């Protein structure tokens, strides 16, 4: 298959996954206790009103048909009505999309910066004390709970040193960057160990590769070999990891947005769970999953574009 065919065919592979995602989110609400319509309309709703809403969402139909209605509704961006927020689910979610996307991008940028710096520092001298320290961070960092780390950062930088705000989102771009620094830092600290393990290992392997040895033996400086040859060649495995990392980052936003009171989708999800607002839970879950799938898709395309050797 040539490159062009791949770009055409890869979107088709999304279809079964998206169907699977829609099935899971559909089943999720089927599993919930009680009648969704009664929950939606409240305890004092008349039988007539319940029947009308049931009919509107097709809930009086067989389950397979209901799934069909669900798909059609989702495609028309109708995710039902939120009981707690008294608004269509889609509006509630979209109103909270921007803070979450900002936080994700910010967190990703910080993670990449940390990862590149730590991996290079570690891989230049494998086994040296810098390498060992980075390694310890990678092992310990995985088990640092972000919600606690966030609180510690608040305690240190917001309450003691008063460098950053305790919570909130901000209005202008610099203000947002200032407000979201600690949340993004928290997420980055959680994700960096995963990426660093990967990039460092690749850097070490590539440093010993034949082309690197050849470069050194014809008199190129170690720095030149490392930064011009080894480093660019080591990036691809880490880039292909980004799909998983975004999924991890999204999980992180759920906790971190709650700790730092960022008005995003993660915080919305936690609130919705506590308020038993199932349609919001369903909608946010769907949004996040589709986000992960699309990210993996873009990462795949980028990988193919960057690496002429990728076998399709």
């Amino acid at each position: 298959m040539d490159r062009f065919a791949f770009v055409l065919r890869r979107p088709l592979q999304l279809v079964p996954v998206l169907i699977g995602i829609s099935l899971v989110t559909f089943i999720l609400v089927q599993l919930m206790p009680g009648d969704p319509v009664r929950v939606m309309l409240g305890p004092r709703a008349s039988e007539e009103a319940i029947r009308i809403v049931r009919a509107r969402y097709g809930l009086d139909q067989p389950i397979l048909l209901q799934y069909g209605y669900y798909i059609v509704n989702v495609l028309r961006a109708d995710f039902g009505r939120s009981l707690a927020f008294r608004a269509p689910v889609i509006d509630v979610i979209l109103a909270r999309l921007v803070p979450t996307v900002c936080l994700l991008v910010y967190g990703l940028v910080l993670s990449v910066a940390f990862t590149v710096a730590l991996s290079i520092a570690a891989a230049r001298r494998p086994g040296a004390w810098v390498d060992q320290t980075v390694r310890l961070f990678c092992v310990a960092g995985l088990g640092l709970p972000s919600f606690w780390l966030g609180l510690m950062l608040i305690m240190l930088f917001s309450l003691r040193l008063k460098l950053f705000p305790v919570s909130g989102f901000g209005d202008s771009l610099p203000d947002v960057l200032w407000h979201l620094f600690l949340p993004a830092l928290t997420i980055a600290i959680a994700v960096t160990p995963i990426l660093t393990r990967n990039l460092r290992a690749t850097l070490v392997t590539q440093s010993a590769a034949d082309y690197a040895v050849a470069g050194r033996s014809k008199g190129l400086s170690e720095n030149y070999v490392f930064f011009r040859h080894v480093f660019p060649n080591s990036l691809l495995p880490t880039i292909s990891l980004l799909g998983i990392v975004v999924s991890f980052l999204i999980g992180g936003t759920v906790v971190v947005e709650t700790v730092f009171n960022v008005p995003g989708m993660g915080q919305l999800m936690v609130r919705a769970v506590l308020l038993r607002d199932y349609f919001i839970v369903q909608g946010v879950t769907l949004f996040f999953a589709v986000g992960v799938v699309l990210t993996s898709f873009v990462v795949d395309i980028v990988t193919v574009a960057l690496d002429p050797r990728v076998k399709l």
Partner: protein
Amino acid sequence: MSVGSEAGPRAAVGSWRLRLPATLLVGAAIVVTWLLIAMLGPAFVAHDPIAVDLAHALLRPSADHLLGTDSYGRDVLTRLMYGARTDLQMAFFGVAGPFVIGTIVGLLAGNFGGIPDAVLMRILDVTVSFPYFVLVIAIVAVLEPGLTSYYISLTLVNWVSYARLVRSEVIVLRQADFVLAAHTIGIGEIRVMSHHLLPNAISPSVVFVFTDAVLTIVLGSSLGFLGLGVQPPAAEWGVMIAEGQLYLATAWWIAVFPGIAISLLALGFSLVADGLAKLLHTAP
């Protein structure tokens, strides 16, 4: 001897040069220490983990209360020890279900292939497209906040990780000479799977058990913190941190110590995973 070592020097490339058993030993020591604290600790403290004693609320760490008291006047050290029981239990039950189910499914799918295997791979594709934490929370939401829901949710979501690990090993192994030999001399299908394939395919899963324990503890305490897991007033580290959140400026000890506890226990499991990976020659 494991077949993995025949497959090539998987562990040697790009691995950290480190004294082999050190991480395993230190990690095991940390985990065992926590086990001892969870089992024996409460016998050595005079305080109650739950009873409210407002006269002694928000006391700084002192000889009487080594780690201070919280806003309800409960001894933080006492709650930390009882919390160790909950969080260790979480690590065990949160991992055991997915491990057993995933291993069996992965073994069957890898060995027989065909339609069940194809179905497994599709389930896998769909599961990894959900952010893990979000899916776990969504399922907990539908069931009802609490520890049992957490276990159910983890089992529903996480068995696929183990199934994938075992399946990918089995697919390679079922072509190996020793398996063909076993079939040739008439050993039954089930016995080949349980006595020949499984022991050789399980190493990556065993390593992952300990990494998974880290995730399970961090996730479980996160749920406790968010109010979706263990419910207060029960002593659980995440719940304790949530209770300390309001007192960060005045009574830091309430939130700080449980977090250190989580990090230490998680570090123990991480180190065990790291050491085991070296020992069993699986890639990190």
